[in-house]
């Protein structure tokens, strides 16, 4: 979902950031199990990272704001497990299986763990040369798809400069809707803070996003 509650950049009213001294990796055992369960299902190919993110974004706004981080992960896991036929809602409610599982090529075993701890590569072979080059001025598109995107709301319709070309990557907007990896060039696009937030903005602020080529259009210097 594009214009959802998850797209928080620039929103007001959430208050102070509250760092916690000596924060542990997990605050309760269920958080640790929840993290590992989510990663396990990703590791066996139940869904991609982008489909998983879309699953979080589809939580209702009240649930999203009212749940802790791993609370969101748990609800996402329940929803996706049921929606994709890995288990029934009745089975999750009962806490035990009522029928056989979906046949999967892989199982998340001890042997799979080391591989899972290293990030995979999202680089893909380019099918066309990069459209933009470092130093180009570009305008981000004013798009509002109802499906997953990684172009944040605050950075749409604004002029920035291509600062770096990051290679050709899996395109989340396509993967999340089951339309394949559709690899696209990825750029770091740099904006002046005043371009994004207006004249009263701290003149020392610059903000960059990582923008896929379909998010960008050329603009005149």
């Amino acid at each position, binding site marked *: 979902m594009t214009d959802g509650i*998850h*797209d*928080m*950049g*620039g929103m007001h009213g*959430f*208050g*102070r*950031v*509250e*760092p*916690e001294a000596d924060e*542990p990796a*997990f*605050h*309760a*055992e*269920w958080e640790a*199990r*929840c*993290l*590992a*369960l989510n990663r*396990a299902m990703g590791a*066996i190919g139940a869904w991609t990272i982008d489909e998983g*993110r879309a699953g979080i974004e589809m939580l209702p706004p009240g649930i999203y704001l009212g*749940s802790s*981080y*791993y*609370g969101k992960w748990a609800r996402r896991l329940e929803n996706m*497990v049921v929606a994709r036929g*890995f*288990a029934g809602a009745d*089975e*999750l409610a009962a806490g*035990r299986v009522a029928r056989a*599982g*979906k046949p*999967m090529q892989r*199982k998340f*075993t*001890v042997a799979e*763990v080391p591989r899972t701890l290293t*990030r*995979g*590569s999202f680089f893909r072979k380019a099918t066309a040369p990069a459209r933009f080059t470092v130093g180009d001025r570009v305008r981000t598109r004013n798009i509002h798809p109802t499906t997953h995107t990684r172009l*944040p709301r*605050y950075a749409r319709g604004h002029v920035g400069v291509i600062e770096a070309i*990051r290679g050709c*990557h*899996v395109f989340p907007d396509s993967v999340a809707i089951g339309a394949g990896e559709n690899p696209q060039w*990825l750029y*770091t696009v740099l904006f002046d*803070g005043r371009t*994004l*937030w207006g004249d009263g903005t701290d003149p*020392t602020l610059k*903000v960059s996003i990582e*923008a*896929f080529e379909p998010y960008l259009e050329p603009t005149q210097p």
Partner: protein
Amino acid sequence: MTDGGDHGDHHEEHGSELSEMQLRVRALETVLAEKGYLDPAALDLMIEAYETRIGPHNGARVVARAWIDAAFRSALIEDATKAVQSFGLINRVGDHLIAVENTPTLHNMIVCTLCSCYPWEVLGLPPVWYKSAPYRSRAVNDPRGVLADFGLTLAPDTQIRVWDSTAETRFIVLPMRPAGTDGWSEEKLAALVTRDCMIGTGLPKQPNEVA
């Protein structure tokens, strides 16, 4: 980790969620394991890795090495994934790690406004505040206000650069080496490198703060 212990969400979580979530997550684990998708022992192993081996001490070694080894520093800025890999400092890191360097006139800060993207391999799991609405909403338009929440005030003319992690690239800040550390070993320097200074919400410790 404490079973049934306190939790860290200051605003969002309600006490009743704890037992409810314990039950829901236990049901998920039981069902997904019995269906044959996963082995609970593999979950144990993964959790142990995040509790013991994968944390900001890894990033601190990378930063400390960059402070004492100019060739490594250049390689890190050029391609952080490759540099970390080839110097064998820590476990293998995956693709798309990018190191961004603070200077006397430039301060870098990392955020993920859309979710919680974070360089797990070098910094471990992100802290609760990094994933929270206050940080994600304000980092991109009021970074000085956010830094004030961390007790950090930069010179008014310091340029502030915020990196929003909107793709699979991951960022680590290379902070400036504190003065008064000439001749320090890599290990001693690493003790100055905090998690927050590698996110950009803090600065390294000063020499007098470590024994």
